Every structure is written in C-alpha cells, then in structure tokens.
C-alpha cells in the first residue's frame, strides 16, 4: 500500500512540478527515486503476514510482493535505458513521467487486488494512462491511430469484463475474491449466469493481455506507438495483466476448472500458433516483436491453464521482459539512426557497434528459447508443468511453434552478423551514453545468468 501511495504522490508531484522549469535530469532523478522508494516499501512487505487495506480491497501477500517487485524492477530497467527517448520529448516531459507513475499505480492495484472492483479500477487507471501515452507523438498519424485503436478496443474489453464481473456478483453476491471462491466451491448448483460471467471475464482479460483470438489490436497498437511505449506495454503491462489473470482464476475459479480448461487450452494453442505464423512474414522488427509478444502471452497463459505453479509464471515474465527490453532498447537506437525499424536497418550492426549487436543477439536467442538463456529455462519450467498436468497436445504445439519462432528470430541475428551494412549505414552514430551501455551489459549478463542458474528468481514464491 505504501508502494501505491509513494508512486501516486510522485506522479502528482511531477505534474505540479511541470509548472516550474525543472531540468530533465531532476525529473528523471525524482522519478527513479520514487520508484526505488516504492520498491523498498514493497520489499518491506515480503514474508510478513498478509496485510489488507482499504476495507480488504487490497491484500498484499508474497505473490503480490514478488510480482510488484518484478513490475517495478523491470520498469526501472526500462527507464534506465530510455534517456534517448525522453531526451527527445520537448513538451510536457513531467506529464509523461507522471503518466508512467500513474500506470504503475494502476498495475499495483491490479496485482494486489482482493476485490473485483479494485481489479477494475487498477485496469482502468493503467489503461487510460496508456491510451494517452500511446498517442503521445501527436504529429505522427500512426501514433494517433494506435492510440484511437487501443482506446476503442480497451474500452470495449473493459465493458465485457465489467459485464462478467456483474454477472459473477449477481450469482455469488460478493465482489470479494473470498466470497466468490466460497460460492464456487460451495457445491451447490451454480446459476448459469455465473458461468457466463466467468467466460466474459475470461474474454475481457484475454483482450487486455492480447491472447488470440482477441489479440488483433496488438500489432497495430504496438507498431504505431512510440517504441518506448511499446516496450513498456509489451513487458510491464503483461506482467501485471497475467499476475491479475492468474490470481483471479487460481483463487476463484479453480474449483470449476473442468469448465474452462478446454477453452483455455484452445486459446493457448491458437495464441502460440497465430503469434508464430504471423511473425514469419514481418519485415519490421517492431511488428515482429509485437507478434512475438502475442506468442509469449500464449506461454504465460499456459500457467493459468495448469492452475498452479505461480513461480513458473513469475520466472517467465521476468525472463521475457528482460529479453524484450534489451531488444527494444537496441531497436530504439537503431530506429533513431536509421529512421525505420525494418530488419534491414540491423544489417551489419555487429561491425559498427558490437555491443548492440551482441545484446540484440542474446535477446533474440532468449526469446527463441535457445539453451543457456533465460528464455529456455522459462520454457522448460512451463512446458514441464503443462506436460505434468496432462496437456500433451499443448506441449506438442508449443514445441512446433518454437521451431517456427527460431526462424524469424534468426532473421534478425543473420542481419546483424552476416549481412554487410551499406555505406550510408556505416556512418550511423548510435548515441548511447555510458549509463546505457552499462545497464545494457547488465541486462545481457542477467539473461545468461538466469539461463544457467534460474533458481535465483524461481524459488521465491
């Protein structure tokens, strides 16, 4: 709770500070300090008796602390790699930061919810902040389009989610997770609106985390938004989204798992397949990463499918986020230098800037799931767990789509190392400060270390 308060206050403070003339470094410093303080306040709650706040609307236990730490940690990692992006924003810089702070507030509310109302509030705070951020490049038509599409789809999804919540409330008589769980485990005949409500909630949440076939907004929105916002959306938001998704289904609906397990397994198969198939033909790295995030969402959904082992989900989202952020930060630099985000802009990167080339390669290997990287261990954990639960077909489809995935991830690696840059591209300067290089290097080391010793993060929950 103190985390939430700190972040909200920092956001408000930044908004007010925007009235005065503050230097960029000060704004960045305030934001980072706020996040560090929030993280500290969050870690303080680790291994303590679960505390309830706001009349039991928020309940913070180890699961929540772990995921909030993941969210904050990954956001800090992303912000440290972002000075390039923020350096280019001319107007309303503090408002940008404030919006990110508010979206983090929304995410924390979303993760630590104990009451469906709080889930809704968290999702809304997060989404509204992101609608604005997606459209933050006001003169770029793609950005406008992304923002509008995201807004319309997001509001639509919220409507469906709300109807689901309402129906569940009507059936169970309570918004609290414990009350709903009691209703579902009571053994009485469940009213049909409970089932309809459950499915509507499933559909609504699937929209938010871009699970197929409700993912069709993802490529356009991810492609049109500024690259930094895309990085934020595809990593941090997914962490929060799946944390909420898993918590909801694990606590409330596990007792009726036989009703939704087949539906969710079909969703998983569709997601990984569609995500892999559509990524093959992409020429833009940004769109490729967007489609690949859809297929990774499929993997994360597998944990919901199994209905257990939250630590697999935690490890997967952390591994995926770190790899994805490394990829996006390299993409941001390349995009700035080359003017576009095509695969061809990456050609010859290894010779021009070896660190960036190496970072992108390690990140692609991790996203593809090649051993010695965090992505491989994450996939092993999840696939073993799914296999154990008896969903052999899901495992088979996942492995087949992993093979397809290697193809398109390697297109980028081949471009980096084995194609030669044209003369004009050799002259690109990639503006990266030493802070950027250090943090990027730490990211690479983290991916490899987590691939060799995943227990550092995995055994926490």
């Amino acid at each position, binding site marked *: 709770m103190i985390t939430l308060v700190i972040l909200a206050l920092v956001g408000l403070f930044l908004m007010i500070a925007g009235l005065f003339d503050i230097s960029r470094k000060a704004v960045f410093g305030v934001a980072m300090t706020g996040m560090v303080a929030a993280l500290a306040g969050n870690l303080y709650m680790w291994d303590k008796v679960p505390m309830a706040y706001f009349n039991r609307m928020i309940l913070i236990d180890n699961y929540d602390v772990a995921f909030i730490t993941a969210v904050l940690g990954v956001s800090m990692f992303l912000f440290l790699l972002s000075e390039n992006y923020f350096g280019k924003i001319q107007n309303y810089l503090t408002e940008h930061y404030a919006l990110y702070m508010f979206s983090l507030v929304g995410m924390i509310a979303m993760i630590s919810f104990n009451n469906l109302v709080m889930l809704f509030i968290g999702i809304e705070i997060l989404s509204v902040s992101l609608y604005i951020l997606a459209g933050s490049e006001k003169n770029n038509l793609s950005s406008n389009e992304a923002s509008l599409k995201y807004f319309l789809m997001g509001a639509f999804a919220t409507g469906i989610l709300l109807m689901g919540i309402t129906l569940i409330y009507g059936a169970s008589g309570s918004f609290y997770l414990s009350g709903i769980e009691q209703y579902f485990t009571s053994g009485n005949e469940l009213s049909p609106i409970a089932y309809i409500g459950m499915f509507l909630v499933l559909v609504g949440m699937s929209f938010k985390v871009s699970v197929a076939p409700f993912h069709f907004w993802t490529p356009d929105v991810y492609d049109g938004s500024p690259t930094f916002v895309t990085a934020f959306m595809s990593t941090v938001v997914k962490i929060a989204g799946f944390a909420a998704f898993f918590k909801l289904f694990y606590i409330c609906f596990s007792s009726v798992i036989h009703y939704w397990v087949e539906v969710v397994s079909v969703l998983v198969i569709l997601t990984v397949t569609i995500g892999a198939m559509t990524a093959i033909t992409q020429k833009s790295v940004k769109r490729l990463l967007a489609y690949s995030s859809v297929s990774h969402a499929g993997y994360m959904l597998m944990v919901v499918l199994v209905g257990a082992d939250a630590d697999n989900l935690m490890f997967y989202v952390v591994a995926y986020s770190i790899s994805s952020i490394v990829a996006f930060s390299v993409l941001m630099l390349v995009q700035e230098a080359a003017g576009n985000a095509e695969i061809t802009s990456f050609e010859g990167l290894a010779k021009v800037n070896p660190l960036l080339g190496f970072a992108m390669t390690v990140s692609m290997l991790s996203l593809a799931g090649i*051993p*010695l990287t965090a992505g491989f261990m994450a996939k092993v954990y999840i696939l073993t767990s799914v296999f154990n639960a008896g969903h052999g077909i899901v495992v088979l489809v996942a492995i087949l789509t992993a093979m397809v995935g290697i193809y398109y991830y390697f297109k980028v690696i081949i471009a980096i190392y084995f194609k030669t840059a044209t003369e004009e591209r050799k002259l690109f300067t990639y503006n990266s400060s030493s802070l950027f290089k250090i943090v990027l290097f730490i990211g690479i080391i983290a991916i490899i270390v987590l691939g060799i010793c995943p*227990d550092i993060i995995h055994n926490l929950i």
Partner: protein
Amino acid sequence: MMTLIVLFLPFVAALLLSLVKGESVKKIALGFALAELVLALMVLNQYMIDPKALSFTCFWITSLGAHLNIDVSGISMLLVLLTAVLIPLIILSTFKHDYKNPAAFYALILAMSGALIGVFVANDLLLFYVFWEAALIPIYFIAALWGGENRIKVTFKFFLYTVIGSLFMLIGVMYLYLQTNVPHPITFEPHHSFDFDHLVALNLSFQEQCWLFWAFFIAFAIKMPIFPFHTWQPDTYTEAPAAGTMLLSGIMLKMGIFGVLHWLMPIMNEGFYANAKIVITLAIIGVVYASILAIMQKDMKRLIAYSSIAHVGLIAAGLFAVNEQSLQGAVIQMFAHGVNVVGLFFIIDIIESRTGTRDIASLGGIINKAPKLGVLFVIIMLGAVALPLTNGFPGEFLLLNGIFQYNAVLAAVAGLTIILGAVYMLKMYQNVMLGEVNALTEKFTDLTMTEFAVLVPIAAIVIITGIYPQYFLDLTQGDVDHLLKLVNTNIVTIK
C-alpha cells in the same frame, strides 16, 4: 573434481581469449588446448586407477531436481580423450590462416570444445540437453562468420534442422523427467529427477518406449547424420571453414553416436530393440548411397563429407545390431574416424590454400612437389579405407562381424562400403597426388613445420592404433558389457 576442471577450463579459456588482442591469440589458444589435453590424460590415468573418483555431483536447479552431475564412463572417457587430442591439432591447423577477428574465432572453438566435453560427461539429462544445444551456437557462428560464399543459407539450414531435432528430443526429456518419482535428497519428498540412474530404473511401457525412442532418435539421427536426415551435411561441411568442418566431423557427430549409446540404449531398450531393424536398414542404405555419391564428387571436401556419412552409417548400423563385436567396433571406429577425418580435411585445407581450388580434376602430381604430404596423405587415406594395420581396420572388421551376426545380407551390403570406399579414396588420391604436375600445382611447396606437426601425430595414431587397438578395447570393454547387459536383460524379462 578433476572432471569439473576438464569441463570448465575451455569455457574459462574462451572468456579470457575473447579479451586478448593481437597476434598472440593463436599461441594462447594452443596453450589452453594443450593444457586441456594434459588434464584429460590425467583424468585417463585416474580412470584406470579408480573410476569412481571421477564423478561429481552438486545442486544446480533444485526446483527442477536437476543436478550438475558429471561422470566418466568408458565410452565417454574415450570421447573426452578424442576431443582433448583433436582440439590442439585443430587449433594448430588454423595457424597458417589469418582469420579476421581471431580472438572471437579461437574463443568460439574453445567454447565449443567445452560444450562437447559437457555432452560427453553429463550424467543428468537436462545438463546433457543444455550442453547438446549449447554446442550448436559456437559452430553456427564459426561456420557462418568465417565460411565460404554460400554460408548464410547453408548454416541457417543446418542450425534449424538440428534445433528441430533437439526440440523433439526436449519433449522426450520432459516426459522422462515427469515419469520419475524419487525422494528428494534433502527433504525426502517425492520429486522428479533428471538423474541418469533414476531414468534407467524407470519402468516404461512398450508404447511409451517406442515414441520416446523416435523423439530422441530424430535428434541423434540428424546429428550423425543418418539417411534420410543427412541433407544438411554436405553443404555445411563444404561451406564451413576448415576448422569448423574438422570440429563438425571429428567430434560433433560423435555426439549423436554417444547419445544413442549412453542415453537411448539403456533407457529405451525395448523401443531400441523393436526399431533396430528400420534404423539399420536406413543406415545401410545411407552407407551405399553416400558411397556412390562420393565417387561422383568433383570437390574434395564434399567427397570426404559424403564418405563421412558412409562411415557413420556403418557405425550406426553396428550400434543397433547390439552385440559385443558391433558395439566395440562402433566405439573404436568412432575414435578412428574422428582422427582420420580431421587429418583428411586438414590435407584438403593445405591443398586448397596452396592451389586455390578443391577440384579433383584440375589438380595432379602434387606428390612430386611435396613428398612428405604425399606420404602422410596416403597413410591417413588408407586409414579411412580401413586397410589392415591402420586404425580403420579393427573398427570396420568388428562392425561388419557384428552386423553379420545380426543379418548376413545386410552385412554383405554394408561390406560394399569397403570396396566403394577404396574406389573413391584411391581415385581421389590418384588424381590429386599422382599423375603429372600441371600449372596449378607447379608451385606447390611442401609441408611447413606447423602442418607437419599436425599431420604426423595423426598419422602416428592411425598406425599405432591400427597395430595395437587393444588399449582402447580394454578401456571401453566394461562399458560395452554393461550396456549389453542392460539391453539384453530387459529383453529377456519380456520374453
């Protein structure tokens, strides 16, 4: 403990090497490789005294029950020795080239050697799998960054093909893991394990064994390669730089054979037995097919690549015939083939760097200009042809003997390999070394010191192990007997 050092020294060396700049990279790399060889010989010594002292276990991923469990059995000892002997020779063989970015090149070679040793000593299935895949990354970069003109597509096809096989193996790995149910060493709750002994003790049904067999075997078959999974091999061998091809053919394909021996046979023995016939047939078809194609090749490197498929096909057929002769033959032939093929590819590299071509027809009369090369070439080539008194002979003889015990007709067809092998090898030698000197080979200089230093040990091994193979036979006898017992007892209990 020593095994741990042997395993991790190449990785540490690779890291250190990547930081070195300048010309001394080659010598430092060679130094590390020789140190590895010394360590491997010490391990060999220890193995003869007390094999148990070489095993090492420690916790790796407790949440999965995977341990850093390494152990050296007879066959893996032989292969570790092969790796440790070949890597310094391979590094030495690259000295005459001036590759750009040498620090990365040698670091990748050493990293790959570490991963290869890891495959051979891993006693934990997940560790085996990680090293199996990890060995692929360095060789991909070696082949793709320093290779021939067509390398990008070819190496990517190689990588994708191999990874697809490995992913099928992953399904098998996960399934086996979930079948185990052993008490945790600390908490004593039942949990799953990747440990080799636990996996062998599993009681799998016949259906399970069959599909698990194919899941694992696809990966091994692609690696060796066995017909019809061989299509990646000739192109990749041709396009890779000489050191890359030597690594691939000398050591990496032994990974596939080793996988069959060490993991496939003990764990999936019924499935093994049931599917043996199909595999032997495919392998022998591959032998004849590859031999015939080898005769038709104009490019020396491609010819040796096809001959490698033929040799490996015979070894694979021997593996699946499952009797003492064929298994021993397979093991010896692994070592012999590794040494021979590295020698042959190096000679091709020498010829190519001197004359600029690998085309058999356009060369000739080199022996007049380079007699030392001629002599060493003929020794190694005859080893590949399996002439008695060379290292190829004991292996080939035992293999054919073993396959004959399994099925006389198949053995007769397989025996064609000797004849066909002699045809293409001798034809190549005749066209390249003998005959008249022409414009291309006019200025052929004889071997330099480093080249001599590489070829002489290889030729020596060819002759010595040809005359006295008993040392290796003794080394691996215990392991082979153990394997036979494992496979046969389980068959007996069914009947």
